[in-house]
């Protein structure tokens, strides 16, 4: 146990799981559902533009780009890896390379290579956090800054534009009336959900986050599991960045700025524990839906940006506070 996160979870022996009440569990799940419903009702009430197919489709599309990152970030939090702050860099890597490499190798190989390189950044994060035991915040911040620098230097620090209209058409297109980006997000969410809740890797991830030492002593490859969570997040961010690039047909180095915050907010608001061992992809996505709808309602109502920031910040602090309170109360 070398990093702070593990020490925290080692000391707080009484965790939120001790509350053990199915009722509390249902309430916390349903609570978010009610919150989403409340936002929808409020939104439809105060703004005629809110409950329109166009607006909701917009929300869904922009949600999908963050949503792909959210799926990955869920693994990091559940595995007890705190958070991945290199997301802006991996998104930029995905976006810049999948556009920038198009003239050289064609759109599909460019996309695949971009995602692969993003995954490599995740591997570096994973090795530093999982195997060497560096605090995840510091490791991912450092790796993210380095990677962003390299990507920026490689493209000369300027905006990269798309050169393949067909790929742009695809990314912006629709299938059965649903935007392709949304479909890709749903597919990734399904795969992520399966991986976390049904596969051995997911069980290992939950065990590693729940009690690192016990998982280790149960022959779970804890280091690989922790590292894997960062690889998963980086691959997801790479895909997200690639889609973002293709949609916008341009990518600047700071294209991914803020996505790490949005993703962490969504996951935490969804009730996934920041200390690990508890959470699921559907929960994180419910958190995402709530945050995105709330933001949308605020935008439609002309709430000023500083106030929006205030609300989102309060949400994340509140969610972490509730998590901590649940752990405390569970002491019985």
């Amino acid at each position: 146990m070398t990093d702070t996160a593990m020490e925290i979870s080692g000391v707080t022996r009484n965790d939120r799981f001790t509350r053990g009440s199915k009722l509390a569990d249902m309430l916390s799940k349903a609570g978010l559902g009610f919150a989403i419903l409340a936002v929808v009702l409020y939104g439809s009430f105060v703004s005629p533009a809110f409950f329109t197919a166009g607006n909701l489709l917009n929300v869904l599309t922009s949600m999908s780009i963050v949503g792909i990152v959210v799926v990955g970030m869920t693994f990091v939090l559940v595995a007890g890896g705190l958070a991945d702050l290199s997301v802006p860099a991996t998104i930029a890597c995905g976006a810049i390379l999948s556009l920038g490499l198009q003239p050289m190798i064609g759109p599909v190989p460019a996309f695949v290579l971009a995602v692969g390189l993003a995954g490599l950044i995740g591997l570096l994060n994973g090795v530093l956090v999982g195997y060497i035991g560096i605090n995840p915040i510091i490791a991912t911040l450092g790796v993210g800054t380095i990677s962003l620098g390299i990507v920026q230097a490689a493209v000369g620090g300027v905006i990269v534009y798309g050169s393949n209209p067909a790929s742009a058409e695809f990314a912006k297109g629709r299938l059965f009336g649903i935007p392709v980006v949304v479909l890709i997000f749903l597919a990734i969410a399904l795969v992520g959900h399966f991986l976390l809740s049904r596969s051995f890797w997911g069980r290992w991830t939950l065990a590693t986050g729940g009690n690192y030492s016990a998982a280790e002593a149960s022959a779970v490859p804890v280091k690989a599991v922790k590292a894997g969570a960062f690889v998963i997040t980086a691959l997801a961010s790479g895909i997200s960045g690639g889609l973002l690039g293709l949609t916008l047909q341009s990518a600047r180095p700071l294209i991914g700025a803020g996505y790490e915050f949005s993703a962490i907010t969504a996951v935490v608001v969804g009730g996934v524990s920041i200390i690990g061992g508890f959470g699921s992809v559907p929960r994180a996505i419910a958190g995402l839906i709530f945050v995105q709808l709330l933001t949308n309602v605020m935008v439609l109502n002309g709430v000023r940006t500083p106030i929006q920031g205030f609300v989102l910040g309060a949400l994340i602090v509140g969610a972490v506070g509730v998590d901590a309170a649940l752990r405390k109360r569970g002491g019985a």
Partner: protein
Amino acid sequence: MTAADCALDMRGISKTFPGVKALSNVNFSVKFGTVHAVVGENGAGKSTLMKVLNGSYAPTSGTIHVGGSEVRMRRPADAQALGIRMVHQEINLVPDLTVAENVYLGRMPARWSLLRKSEMIARAAAVLDELGAAINPRERLGNLSISQQQLVEIAKAYAAKPRIIVLDEPTSSLSEHETAALFRILRKMRDDGIAIVYISHRLKEVLEIADEVTVLRDGSMIETRPIHGITAAGMIRLMVGREVSNVFPKSPAEIGNSVLRVDGLSDGLRFRDISFDVKAGEILGLTGLVGAGRTEVARAIFGLSPLIEGSISVNGRKVSINSPSDAVKAGIAYVPEDRKGDGIVPGMSIRENISLPILRRLTRFGRIRRSADRSLAAGYVKQFSISPPDGERRINLLSGGNQQKAVIAKWLAANPRVLILDEPTRGVDVGAKAEIHHIIGQLVAGGMAVVMISSELPEILGVCDRVVVMRDGHASQPLVRRELSEERIMALATGEEIA
């Protein structure tokens, strides 16, 4: 009893949690200058009562008098202000601070708000010295063994000069030698007029140290008696409400070929040149003072910590073990000493805990086969009568004994040839202890080789076929059953006899 010599008087204490009545109308009083033991099975309400006493829980009803006057405690700080100190079973110290800083945590001597470090170290040294603990007050706490940390915890409570001191299983991580030292301290504190509440599963110790004993069962006070009016068997009867005939039922098993053999194991630090073997159907005891290196040897065999020398063979074949998963493949399983820290994943169900080491075998195309997962857990829940019999129950909601049974089940699922059990009955109640011994007996009868680490000599003597005694990282020659006696083992463990 007059109000003046009554340190603590709790009357009609009840504590209700949603759906559970943890304490029901409990009366409990302790006189100054006495040691008052509280015994009961896990779940009997001891911990809840102590949490009421130290201000962590407010009682649902009832009154508390301390030193003759009625008090209301809302938080642990209130209890501390009244001179009530608690020594928890689990270490509650800051690993990155020094021993002295931990002893005086929150009350460090200062002048002009500057810390007087040398005075603090000198005072801590004096307290530790008085306790007979050979611990350097300048040492970083995290570098100490668990038993030394436990002594620091006691020193911390003692240094606060309390009126009432509550010790919760203080000897669970102490060797017999250290326990004797602790008892000297407790008697001294008692003679100073401190009221001592002593919670323990170890009835022999209770008989030795306590003046009075209170038995709790199912949240009710069953009886308070002077210690000279009761025997261990009598206490067990009151605790469980039934007779436990044989505490150590050793079923004689057919002893076969050597299964696990270790030769010249060293980790370069905490143990050196350890050699022994265990045969099929045999229980090999590994004992010694806490800190002698027993757990370290077990962890190294299981691949949790590195070896620098030595070889491990299973069924005559040399195996290379660099991780727990190598050990599992080689047929070695390990039930760790620290159940909460290393044994269970608290947020997971009994089922999820049991299948953890062999998850890969239960998957098809990466997907866990639910039916296989369920039936595996259900089988063990039934076989070991884990209570409540519900594999979906979160494991941390079970009693210590049932958690331990689940941890053992987890390893049996991996179908090992050798099972290493590290303090398997620590902190579990009398009934569960007998069940765990019964399970171990069945396993060896089925041809498994078992290594059992224990600090409890009666357990070692009652259960093991052969015993290896460790001292300062070295192992003795194995003692066979007819050579076994508490005196012999203690002599080897303390170095009064060279094997």
